[in-house]
């Protein structure tokens, strides 16, 4: 009797999970299907059609799509690089030293994550134009620090805290200098955490929309902003729109697969150690 009940329970749970999985994954599958649909069949067919690569050809070679991808890459990678260079030492200091206002500084950095993007961006629009960094790689990389820096510092700080201080003391007693300890011992130990935090920061920067929408113009056009142009043309090339969406989502999904194990910790800024 009891086994019957638990069998029924697991069937119900499996069915519910299938329903949710369809809701979560079918839109992505549908998007990929559309990329292979020729324009002529887009209105008349559902799953059976004559697949074509024409949409890919048009998007990649007859539009500026590759340029948008390049801009996204430069800005996101640049933002992560700056955050790693400035953020990893800061994370170390916040993990290891006791100094006045330490927690205040840490929370100050975290609070940038929760500042409404529009609030930051409205005055920046004015200042960026005065400084002539509006619509430039430099400007975007700078403002993207609000996305990547808090993430990197908070997550990496947690990984540093996981390393016992004893090891460091032992190395110090053995006569290793601080940079030997840092580069030869600590960095290799936190490397998986650092790499995953950096990749997650890259994904967030890559996906960012509000900042480039307002602070970028015609010179620098990350893909998230440029993709809306494929929407607005009105000529209803849905296949091409689907290609643009698919290709822009691909890097983020691939990176996410690489860092699966560290994802929870990164997403929660180190608050949940998954």
């Amino acid at each position, binding site marked *: 009797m009891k086994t019957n009940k638990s069998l029924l329970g*697991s069937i119900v749970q499996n069915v519910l999970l299938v329903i949710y999985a369809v809701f979560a994954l079918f839109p992505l599958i549908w998007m990929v299907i559309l990329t292979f649909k020729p324009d002529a069949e887009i209105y008349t067919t559902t799953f059976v059609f004559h697949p074509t690569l024409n949409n890919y050809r048009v998007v990649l070679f007859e539009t500026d799509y590759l340029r948008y991808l390049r801009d996204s890459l430069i800005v996101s990678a640049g933002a992560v690089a700056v955050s790693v260079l400035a953020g990893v030492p800061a994370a170390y200091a916040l993990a290891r030293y006791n100094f006045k206002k330490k927690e205040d500084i840490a929370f100050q950095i975290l609070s940038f994550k929760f500042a409404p993007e529009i609030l930051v961006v409205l005055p920046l629009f004015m200042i960026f134009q005065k400084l002539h960094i509006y619509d430039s790689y430099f400007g975007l990389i700078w403002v993207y620090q609000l996305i990547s820096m808090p993430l990197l510092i908070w997550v990496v700080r947690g990984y540093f805290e996981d390393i016992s201080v004893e090891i460091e003391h032992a190395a110090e007693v053995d*006569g290793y200098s601080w940079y030997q300890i840092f580069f030869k011992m600590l960095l290799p130990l936190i490397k998986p955490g650092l790499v995953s935090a950096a990749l997650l920061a890259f994904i967030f920067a890559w996906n960012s929309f509000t900042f480039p929408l307002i602070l970028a113009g015609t010179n620098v056009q990350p893909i998230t902003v440029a993709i809306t142009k494929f929407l607005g043309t009105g000529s209803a090339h849905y296949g091409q729109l689907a290609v643009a969406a698919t290709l822009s989502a691909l890097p983020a999904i691939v990176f996410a697969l690489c860092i699966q194990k560290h994802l929870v910790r990164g*997403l929660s800024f180190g608050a949940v150690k998954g």
Partner: protein
Amino acid sequence: MKEQKTNSAAASELNVVPFKTRVRPYLIVAPALIITIGIMIPFVMSIYFSLTSYSFRMPVYKFVGLNNWVTTLQSSTFWQALWVTVRYAFFSTVIEMLLGLGVAMMLNNLNNKFSKILRVALIFPLMVAPITATIIWQLMLNNSVGIVEKFLNIFGVYNFPWAAGASTAMLTVVMIDVWINTSFCMLLVLAGLQSLPKSPFESAKIDGGSPWFNFVNLTLPMLKPSLYIALLFRLMAALQEYAVIFGLTKGGPGNTLMNLSLTAYQTGFHFQKFGAALPYILVLWLFINLVAKQIVKRQRAAQRQALGLEE
């Protein structure tokens, strides 16, 4: 060979200056802080500019005191935007939390091959840019090429308005938000579930409590810290949502989806009233801060309580 080399290098540096000096930590933190604070200076300025008639078009502006604030707080646009903001945040967060909790519990219970594959696959929507997710859903819901329309036709429903209808627009954006972010809650809850200590559950088994009793009295209190973290991140993001609504309808039809972020953007850029746009967003910022403080306080209390339960 290599080992020897590092040993001798270490020996020569035995007498280095003491590592810990008082200013060093500040110096190490400084670059990161300067880079981020530099970008926040405009925020402080925005408080000042909210007291002026600044506009991107006009070269001169004057101090107008609390004029912008009074006009904004008296306008129906503001209260409508606040109402949209709160409703959007409430519905999307509640659904995402409940659904995320449910899916995580089921994945944790089943622990079969299917659930292991899902654990990986379900993170895909979360990794797609929100603006891209919106486009994907537009392709789904489109009345001429969308698959959802074809599916609804089977049930005799034709041309469901979705984002175009005044009464269905909110439903549509919340659905897209739920599609994107449920897996965030799911991941956090799942991690929480897997780190639960075994012993309280074993003693509960001996006591023979019902599954529901155990869920309410054991699982839930111990999960609370993770749940609050998920709530904090989701609510903060939902209160300032921009990309999904902008991508779907730019706030329309009419002003049904104009939340505080979108109204500020529209007032500042389209109507060129920069000073007048700022009160919207400063109120939002204040609101977000108050809510965040409350959640953080509760999260800490829940953490202490959960630690007590473990012992």
